[in-house]
């Protein structure tokens, strides 16, 4: 479970390939264009799908990515796609639609997984900032990214502490226990936010 969480939380694979060195804005725009192209492709244009897949695989090889990790991330995301795609099977004759949706979604996922494996999230935030996304939203995203790992670790500590002191694990206990952890985490989060605000003010931040 912990390993799975690690994998979810660190999509970036450090490297110094030409792909890593490209400007983040360019990579972001390319990924976006690629995804829009995939979405726009007519259903059943399998040759074009294949070409895009080959292109993405080439980029992954040039970037020297850990292909196994990329595949694992992709597989972890597949269940979400399948669960929505299954709705298409509720239509009479939905199989071709199902297959083409699966292909499109998987390709789009692959493009995003590749982008996040070769680009730091902070660089992507810089792109959003320069694209004049409202400052409040970018600030929120930056703070969220900064404290995400802190809060997840804090939550893990609280859960570990609780588990080591609780002997029975009935369903009711688990629900109350998890709620207790989440509630306390919010209290601690709001206290931390006050300290963060004071620290930001001390460094000259103005809203």
């Amino acid at each position, binding site marked *: 479970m912990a390993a799975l*969480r690690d994998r*979810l939380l660190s*999509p970036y694979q450090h490297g110094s390939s030409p792909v890593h060195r490209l400007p983040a804005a360019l990579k972001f725009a390319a*990924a*976006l264009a690629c*995804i829009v192209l*995939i*979405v726009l492709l007519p259903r059943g244009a399998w040759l074009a799908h294949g070409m895009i897949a080959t292109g993405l695989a080439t980029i992954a090889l040039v970037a020297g990515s850990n292909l196994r990790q990329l595949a694992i*991330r992709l597989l972890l*995301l597949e269940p*979400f796609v399948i669960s*929505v795609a299954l*709705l*298409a099977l*509720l*239509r009479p004759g939905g199989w071709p639609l199902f297959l083409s*949706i699966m292909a*499109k*979604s998987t390709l*789009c*996922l692959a493009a*995003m*997984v590749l982008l*996040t494996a070769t680009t730091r*999230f902070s660089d992507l935030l810089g792109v959003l900032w320069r694209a004049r996304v*409202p400052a*409040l*939203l970018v*600030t*929120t*995203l930056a*703070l*969220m990214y*900064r*404290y*995400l790992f*802190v*809060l*997840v670790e*804090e*939550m893990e500590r609280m859960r570990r502490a609780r588990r080591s002191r609780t002997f029975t694990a009935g*369903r009711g206990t*688990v*629900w*109350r226990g*998890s*709620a*207790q952890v*989440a*509630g*306390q*985490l*919010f*209290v601690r*989060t*709001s206290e931390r*936010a006050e300290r*963060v*605000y004071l620290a*930001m003010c001390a460094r000259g931040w103005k809203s």
Partner: protein
Amino acid sequence: MHIPDGFLDLRTAATAAALAVAGLAYALRDVKRSLPPRRVPLIGLAAAFVFAAQMLNFPVAAGTSGHLIGAALASVLLGPGAAVVAMTAVLVLQALMFADGGITALGANVLNMAVVAPAVAFGVFAALRRLLGRSLRATLLAAGFAAWCSIVAAAVACAAQLAASGIVDWGTVLPAMAGVHMVIGLGEAVITMLILAVVLRARPELLDEVGRVPGTAGVTAAYGLMASVALVAFVAPLASSRPDGLEYVAERFGFAGFATVAAEPPLADYSVAALASQSPWLSTAVAGGIGTLIAFGVAWLVARALTTAGQSAAPHR
């Protein structure tokens, strides 16, 4: 409920994105005007909190487990504008960093889970609290029911977008999505109430700060309007493009009956069996009404179980 890339056609995706941007812009303006700067960092940290809390498992049965979605909890604890911004941040981060939810579908996902869900939750919460008072029990009941409503509203919006893209039939997807999420929403309601009870016991003044934001009635109306527009924009064209042809209904439900039973809920089953012959919209409405009553009852029972009579959410009020 995250829609991946490749499901929505561009027209639907663009409409949803435009509505999402409008909702987000209003929320950002609202936050800038009414939120004290002291609470701005809290939005970012609360977004991280929602993300972390979504990782907590709540076992249901036979190895399956649910988790919090958090729109209603954020709405209650932060106020509506801040909740919209925080939930948007959660969805953007999920899409950009974890490829959870598509980029072209980001507008639709933000609309469903970061605009409609918190707006509906806040509207229901504010209205119920006005009706029921501000005791701890009433607050918890209002929050729980608001959480259930937010999940169902987001599911209906999601179903409407999928149907508008021609992926699924409206007559099939609405009962399936709404039915499943009426059950999921019960979990969300209970989790939200459990967490809120912990927070309010530890720091009751946290809710006060939200309540003190000026102009609450007008703001409530504005967010209610926002959610309605977002829902109606997709649902209305679909509803009107399906005339009440009996033949159409019979043909459709001959198939849909099978699909909804397989998908889950007893209510959808009941509605199909008893009322489909008359009008699918009536049957859906009846099933929805029964589901709503059950949800309210569950929220009431949990609120009772979590409190003793006469406790106040804010002792120093």
